[in-house]
């Protein structure tokens, strides 16, 4: 570490080593509560979930009957599991389609706005103040059959759409409000755009480039690394799709918005089949580890590119 100075004399080195040993001990005392908490709240449940997945878990007499891999066999032979599995991916992709590029476009537009830039950026941040669950419930209200969006569609002379009630559309309905964008990502991306040296823009202007050309050839390339990181992050969250369907559609209609998380939750806390739920959770964990590995490789690939 930087703050350990090089020993000026030979006798000092042993003294410093002794000091470091004592510091390690103090450090252990400082670190011990975190060890206890992480072991109890992270590592133990992690082992527990894998262990439970081999049992027909019984709350009153844990762990109950040993099942071998029957829970996994049931999962993989269950058509509902595969439906949820593919729903997860379809909804991840739809989330990207509707929500991924929106903050980028918003930030690019905002970077070239001359009037009231601070006001607009503040207003983009404003919805962050509303807790996520409340925002979801607001979205649920405006997506309902007689909600705001259908009312506006009716005003425009278009038919009503069953955003949350039509099995063919519900997946889109859950993700379409990503088009509204806003939030912290706009700021992160805007910071990347404004991080570009202003001389580059000035040089472009002297060469006769207009706003569109500057956005296309200077700002957009500056945004790419940030978007890459955001993409990798979304990959990590792909398995965590739960709150949207849980609050807005309950997995319906006709299981069209059922995700892995919903399936696991229903199994655990509606049907109280903890062993089966643990098997689903373990499969999700395996997927998440795979995705994280892919993410790390993608990150490395990106670093190599630069």
């Amino acid at each position, binding site marked *: *570490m930087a*703050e350990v*100075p090089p020993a000026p004399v030979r006798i000092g080195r042993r003294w410093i080593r002794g000091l*470091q040993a004592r*510091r*390690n001990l103090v450090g252990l005392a*400082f*670190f011990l*509560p975190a060890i206890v*908490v992480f072991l*109890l*709240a*992270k590592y133990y*449940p*992690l082992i*527990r*979930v894998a262990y*439970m997945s081999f049992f027909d878990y019984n709350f009153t007499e*844990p762990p109950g009957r040993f099942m071998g891999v029957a829970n996994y066999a049931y999962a993989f032979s269950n058509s509902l599991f595969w439906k949820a599995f593919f729903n997860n991916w379809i909804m991840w992709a739809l989330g990207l389609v509707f929500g991924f590029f929106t903050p980028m476009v918003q930030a690019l*537009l905002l*970077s070239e*706005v001359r009037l009231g830039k601070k006001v*607009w950026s503040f*207003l*983009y941040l*404003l*919805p962050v*103040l*509303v*807790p*996520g*669950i*409340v925002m979801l*419930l*607001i979205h649920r*209200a405006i997506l309902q059959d007689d909600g*705001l969006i259908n009312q*506006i569609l*009716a005003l425009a002379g278009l038919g009503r759409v069953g955003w*949350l009630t039509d099995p063919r559309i519900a997946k889109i309905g859950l993700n379409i409000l990503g088009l*509204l*964008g806003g939030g912290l990502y706009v700021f992160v991306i805007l*910071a990347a755009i404004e991080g570009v040296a*202003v001389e580059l*823009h000035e040089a472009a202007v002297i060469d006769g480039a207009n706003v569109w050309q500057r956005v296309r050839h200077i700002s957009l390339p500056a945004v790419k690394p940030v978007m890459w990181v955001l993409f990798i992050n979304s990959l990590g969250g792909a*398995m*965590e799709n*739960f*709150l949207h369907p*849980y*609050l807005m559609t*309950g997995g*319906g209609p006709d299981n069209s918005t059922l995700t892995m998380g919903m399936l696991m*939750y229903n199994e*655990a*806390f509606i049907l109280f089949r903890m062993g089966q739920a643990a098997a689903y*959770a373990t499969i*999700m*964990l395996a997927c998440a580890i795979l995705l*994280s590995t892919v993410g790390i490789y993608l990150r490395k690939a990106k670093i190599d590119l630069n």
Partner: protein
Amino acid sequence: MGDSLSGIRSSGIDKTLHGLFLGLTVAWVLALLMPVAYTIGDALKSTREIVGSRLIWIPAVPRAMEIAVDYSDYAREQEALGIAAADIRRKIADEALALQWGVLQDLDQDQKVWDVAVTCFMGGRRIHQVRSNRKEWVIFKYLCGKTSYTLPIGLFSFFQQYPEREARATYWHERDWTGDEATVPANNSALAERVRATIRDLPLRYVFDQPKEPLKGRVLTVNERPAPERLLDNFFIAVRTAANVQDDPLGFFRYFLNSVFVVLVGILSQCAISGSAGYALSRLFSPGITKIALLFVVITLFIPGLVLLTPLYVTISDFKLAGTIWGIIFPYAAWGLNVFLFKEFFDQLPGELFEAARIDGCGETGIFVRLVLPTSKAVFGVVTLLTFSAIWGDFIWQNVATIGNSKIWTFPVGLTYTVLGGVGGQAVFTGDREIRPEIGAAASIFAAIPTIVIFGLMQNSIKKGALIGSVKG
């Protein structure tokens, strides 16, 4: 940084493009804010204004209505049948209640009447008055003579929750009360005339003893006026509805206090445990140990929270914490993310400071308490803020950890199950109470207030927090 691009001069096509970009930005901002703005409007509307075929942006001003009914003829009729005067007055009181309730129910939908009073006259004297408004849906006031009685009854569960029918008579009337002198008010609007005709034919569905019978009294006048003071009623109803679900003297505020407790203990624990762990990683461990300890923390970041939902619940059951408030707090004790935030911050502190303190003979704990803590207010502020917003809005875990004990429902869980319409797409009923969209909207605004207040109070921390990462990176 900041407005670096603003200095670049623009001309010709650039001006058009800048205008276009501004227009698009404004349109997008408006679209983004529209759901929230519409929800605020919804909180001031009646059900009909929200679900009706017309799109309404500005809520109408609610109206108040006073109805005068004459029972002289009815009383004479009953007297001829040989019924005691006190019993007649009781019947009239029953009917006044039914009429008042029926009008409130029927007119609220069409006319947005949120305040209804029914006054009964007999032989030119005022003998009885029933008064209630939407705000006090669950508490009806009976003005009988000089005394006003309050009956604690829920509107939608009126019949089920009030079993003591006999006790009712004692509430109804003071036996020796024969009314006071009063003049009947005059009609004041065209609407009142129309409503008057409707009321005469309104079947009184809610009378205890005579269901679906027409009004026996004669409607004298119907007075109607705007009542802007009723505009915020939905908020009061949201609070009352939430409070009425469980028999708790704290009612609605129980959820709030539960959340505050969970968040406070969570923040304290995060600051203590994550803070000291971050310090150990940054300043105390030798590089080799730091590497191992870092790995220990990093792995926890990669575990999806959803995977741990089931085993965490089983774990808190093992420790006999399921269904207690400590069970909710259990996984909030420390987070890897906060450990890293603390480590990043402590890494930035100048090393010379520590060397100087060590040379002066200060112990490692002394350095932490006397030197590090006073200079680290910024990072503690940021961690507080992040922890607050993460725990306050964490519905998934709190929903599971409170299974089987509605006494420990936290703010988001309690509101979701009582007034926000429950989970899933179609659940619009909780218990015997119908959930109305305007009440849900009011509750949503309630739920957003604490976050807005905290963010407003801690603006400085947000700005400093943005610097923690940037100085190093």
